[in-house]
């Protein structure tokens, strides 16, 4: 099977700090891959590179065969991205966010799906209020809605479960399952191992900006998985 996401020797430097130090990664259509690791492991920076937000310092990053460095706009058309921090314009409403996404992504007849997603994530009542008044969990839920609106080929969810209530977690798991069912490639960055196992088919563990292992979700499940994960982090 041809990988949708192919990362080889990815390095990202911010001045003196090397945030990603040689990550290799492959992700396939119809599968969801979890990126696990401690804070500062390079998960979010890798996601930002895949979303076309941060350019790689070195290495080869391709999404559906497109080089992220050469054609970032083409990548952005195919990717749906939920950033790790906020990800919302403070004084715009959810509906305005959705309008912006729909307009820039040229999504035809987007409103029914937008309404359905807002209802599924229980955000229908606040669709026309500015997001600065939102709780952290509400913001996370809306970020997932925005990432999933255009049914992208690649869904990048960075910490989508962080501070989200059980209904929001369930809705996010449903979005991931739907994306898998239609053959999308999903990458979920999180430090919540149990949810990663529930949401994904494989798990890649990052440490100190590098990949240390790729395992099946089953290998990371339960007490055995917890021990294995712990061993990979130390």
């Amino acid at each position: 099977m041809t990988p949708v996401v192919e990362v080889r020797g990815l390095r990202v430097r911010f001045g003196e700090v090397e945030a990603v130090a040689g990550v290799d990664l492959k992700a396939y259509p119809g599968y969801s891959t979890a990126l696990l690791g401690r804070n500062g492991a390079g998960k979010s920076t890798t996601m930002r590179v895949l979303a076309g937000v941060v350019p790689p310092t070195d290495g080869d990053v391709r999404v559906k065969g497109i080089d992220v460095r050469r054609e970032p706009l083409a990548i952005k058309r195919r990717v749906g991205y939920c950033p790790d921090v906020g990800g919302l314009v403070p004084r715009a409403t959810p509906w305005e966010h959705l309008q912006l996404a729909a307009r820039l992504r040229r999504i035809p007849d987007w409103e029914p799906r937008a309404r359905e997603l807002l209802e599924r994530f229980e955000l229908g009542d606040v669709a026309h209020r500015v997001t600065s008044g939102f709780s952290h969990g509400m913001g996370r839920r809306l970020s997932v809605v925005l990432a999933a609106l255009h049914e992208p080929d690649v869904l990048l969810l960075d910490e989508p479960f962080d501070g989200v209530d059980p209904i929001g977690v369930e809705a996010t798991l449903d979005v991931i399952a739907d994306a898998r069912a239609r053959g999308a490639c999903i990458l979920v960055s999180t430090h919540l191992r149990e949810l990663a196992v529930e949401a994904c088919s494989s798990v890649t563990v990052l440490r100190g900006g590098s990949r240390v292992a790729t395992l099946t979700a089953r290998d990371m499940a339960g007490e055995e998985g917890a021990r294995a994960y712990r061993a990979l982090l130390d």
Partner: protein
Amino acid sequence: MPTGLSSTELPRILALERRAVADLGHLLRFRAATASRRRTLLIGSAFLALTLAATVVPAYLPGAGAPGAGRARDALTLLPAAFAGFQLLSLVAAIASGGGRELVSREQLVAYPVSPTTDHLGALLLAPLSVAWLLQSWALLGTAAFGLGPARTAAAAVGVLLWIAAATAIAQAAAWSVEGVRRLPHGIAVVRVGALLLGVLAAWLQLTGRLGPLLDALPTRWFVVGLVDGANGRWVLTVAAELALLLVAVVLGAIPAHLCARLAPREEHDVDSALHLPRPMPRSAWAMLVRIDRASVWRAVPVRRGLLILSVGPGVVAVAGALTWPQLVLLPGLVASGGALLFAVNAWCLDGRGGLWRESLPIGPRAVFTARAWVCLEFLAVASAITVGIGCLRAGVPDAREATAVLAGWLVVLGQVLSASLRWAQARPYPVDLHTARSTPAPPMAMVAYSSRLALTTTLTSLIFSTLARDGTPVVTIAVAVVLGAWSALRLRRTAVAWVDPVIRARVVTAAAL
């Protein structure tokens, strides 16, 4: 029911206030640690040098301190009104910013037991970090020095400096009180009606010719009289009264600050909970970008408040002072500079943490840049248009030379301010959420640096066009405008080209999203 402080309560309150003062030191050290030492030293030295120059140099100018009728006498005659003007400016600035600036933002301090007294003292310390405050202070010191001459300047300067400090503290106390009223039920309406009534009263005084006699009868005259004859008994009495005013205002200001801290900021909550009904999808992607950017600007409490004060205030002054067209040329630059300091100098902070998501959307960086530049430009243009619109009410119909100079000067300063703001916004992005009335788009020292540079550039440019409005020809004015405008356009283009670089864009977006 308790009727006063018990013998055990007073020592407890004093201990808490001592702790609040000590906390101010901690916050100052924290703030200093995050600022560049070299930059702080440079700005501090420049501030001291300019203050010293404003106090000493005018005393040695020709005609300074000359007895009898003359410019020195005129300066002294104007000094009581200037004292009152400084008080008014401090009041407006402190009230507009909802109690003054924050030494460290409320969001960052929310987990710490920081007393409102610390917040009050911090806001007082930051009040001088504004070009308007500095220019007015230097003008007061310079006017006193010129009016009195070298022999009596030193004693008078002590009194003027104390007046500046006392007026700032009084303004701070009044601002906390007004902010307290704003936070009560219907408080916003009460404050707005109050401001309107004051405006009507001022207009009535002006139109009925009562403003002049009122200015002559101001209590500030008592302070000026006490400072003009050197260090004698009356001087001691005056300085003691100023010192007492200062201390009382600083101490009493803490009371409304505490009361404010117990009340929810109503205006911010109104913005957070307001319903914005959906509008039809705009025809183009660029129009959609502009719509989102406009929402970010016009829904921000500090920006809306700032615009009102910034544009209406100078316009009213222009009408009251019956400014002529060559004098009106100076106003758009002043207002545009102030407008830029409300958000444009850190324009990418408008997206906050949403910048990361916006950057993942499939649209070219040029469109994003031009949309942001357009929204900044229209804000600056609206602010200065209001001022010019009010100011021209008494200026009569301009002739061709004046009209050309005003329009050309206006366009040039708009270009200068826009170009500088977006350049700085790209070079030094700060993670700021303009959520509260007290928010500023950059840290205090950066704001001083920005405001000084903007004030200097736009004032010099406006002076050129003011001269052209009196003595130039429309052709010369347009030629000058084309040259100056082209320079700003070139610098703006350089910034736009740099924005296309994904490394620069990633740095700005991630810094603003922290």
